[in-house]
């Protein structure tokens, strides 16, 4: 059954879109990520204009991550205090990112920068997570005691000012660290058109030393706020939010997210991280391949505003 999308201005199959929503929603519930690094390229691949794919995905993410965040909140697995500090940085970062995006679009290199940042960010995060989860799985097999929790932060983190106590995560750390992490993620959100969960989750685990149980919920809570902000700004400035497309993706997405959140409960933290790492590396590899291999047509066209 075909449906015409009023903003994207083309017809697509409803069941195909629903299926896409379920798959991406499942990943988002399981890993606490938005899944934007998968959905945005897939939407563009099936013919949705680039800008519409990015904006509509932000809209769809609100639903998927809100349903996931509520599920985690009920299990008391959201650190709101940490989330708010990171959000402050996120707003600063996304403003900066929007400005960068405009500058790069003017010189016609935005697609290259998007692809390169995907390859670098996904590749690095993926490798880091894969080696860490591999090591911790090995350690568990040998029944070695886990690393002690105290003093996990490196020396340079411990000497930073504005230290704050985050009770839910049971850590005591300078507020500057989550602020800067949030800001960095904000820049990526604006440039890459993703929720930023895939970088926020590892940053929370490795840099802030938050317990894995709290990380997913806190990350989802932030994605809700950030994507709501992006949706509103896009609706205001570019009018590229397609509510029909977003609603179809949402229906699939919320179903998948619930199943994903439950599945995540049966898996060990390092297993979840290992799987996410493999997924990130696969996407990074595909994008790198596309950049290196000679494209079928060296020429491309885009509609230019006069």
């Amino acid at each position, binding site marked *: 059954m*075909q*449906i*015409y*999308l*009023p*903003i994207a*201005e*083309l*017809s697509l199959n409803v069941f195909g879109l629903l299926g896409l929503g379920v798959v991406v929603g499942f990943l988002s519930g399981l890993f606490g990520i938005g899944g934007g690094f998968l959905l945005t390229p897939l939407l563009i691949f099936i*013919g949705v204009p680039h800008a519409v794919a990015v904006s509509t995905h932000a*809209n*769809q*993410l*609100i*639903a*998927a*991550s*809100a*349903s*996931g965040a*509520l*599920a985690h909140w*009920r299990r008391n697995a959201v650190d709101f205090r940490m989330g708010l500090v990171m959000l402050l940085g996120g707003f600063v970062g996304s403003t900066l990112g929007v400005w960068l995006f405009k500058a790069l679009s003017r010189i*016609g*290199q935005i*697609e*290259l920068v998007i692809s*390169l940042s995907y390859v670098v960010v996904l590749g690095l995060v993926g490798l880091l997570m894969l080696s860490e989860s591999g090591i911790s799985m090995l350690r568990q097999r040998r029944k070695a005691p886990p690393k002690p929790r105290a003093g996990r932060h490196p020396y340079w983190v411990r000497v930073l000012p504005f230290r704050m106590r985050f009770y839910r995560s049971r850590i005591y750390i300078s507020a500057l660290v989550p602020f800067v992490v949030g800001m960095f993620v904000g820049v990526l959100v604006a440039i890459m058109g993703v929720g930023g969960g895939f970088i926020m989750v590892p940053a929370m685990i490795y840099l802030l030393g938050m317990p894995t149980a709290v990380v997913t919920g806190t990350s989802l809570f932030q994605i*809700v706020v950030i994507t*709501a902000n992006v*949706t*509103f700004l*896009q*609706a*205001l400035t570019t*009018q590229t*939010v397609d*509510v*029909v497309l*977003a*609603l179809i993706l*949402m*229906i699939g997405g*919320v179903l998948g*997210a*619930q199943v994903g959140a439950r599945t995540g409960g049966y898996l060990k933290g390092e297993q979840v991280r290992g799987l996410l790492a493999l997924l990130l590396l696969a996407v990074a590899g595909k994008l790198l391949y596309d*950049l*290196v291999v*000679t*494209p079928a*047509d*060296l*020429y*491309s*066209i*885009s*509609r*230019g*505003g*006069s």
Partner: protein
Amino acid sequence: MRIQQSLRLMIALACLSCPLAAHGQALVADLSSHLVAITTGFAGTDVLLFGAVEGPGDVVVVVRGPDQREIVRYKARVAGIFVNRKEMAFSRVPSFYEVAASGELDKIASASERARLEIGSENLRLIPEVERDPATVADYRAALIRNKEAQGLWAPNVAKVTSLGARLFRANLYFPSNVPVGIYQVQVFLFHDGEVRAAQTTPLSISKIGASADIYEFAHRADAAYGAIAIALALAAGWAASAIFRRV
């Protein structure tokens, strides 16, 4: 729909064919519909073009969507990866382009007539905004045609105009689901001995109708409210899902 269309065609043809000789018009043509309505279920559509000719000759139909500006970019390898290196902007590029003819174009119309009337994508006057050497411009122009055809917006082949007897003709014009909206020009030419004997231009409006039009309008007129509603809808959907799944 089909029966209604054929009925309308028959009536129209009956009306067309009688007074034709009396008025001395060499060519009369019309469309089964002057409005293509893009509704929620729109998945591409056919519009029937029909008409009658006086005297011998071949019919050529050119469909042109509203003009727009296109930028063609060329990728080259830089440090191992492919990067957009050069670009050329074309203004006045038809957003949609299709040709139908009752025979082979090069036999129907002389090269100069085809060039003058922009019949066939190779004859479109695609002029770059900044002047460059002819060989480079030719490369970019070919790339523009290739990419437009890949998008399905420029028909790569000449569609068929079917003759019904000596005087009547018909052609099916196909518009895909990603067809741009706007006012289209449907030009019908009657050729004889390579020269144009008669021509007629009929407008065709392609626009969004119903829910999809309302949503589009709302998104552009009341952008802040649209954004707020989009957020509210998403939050409601997320909450509803979580509430439902809590009980399961």
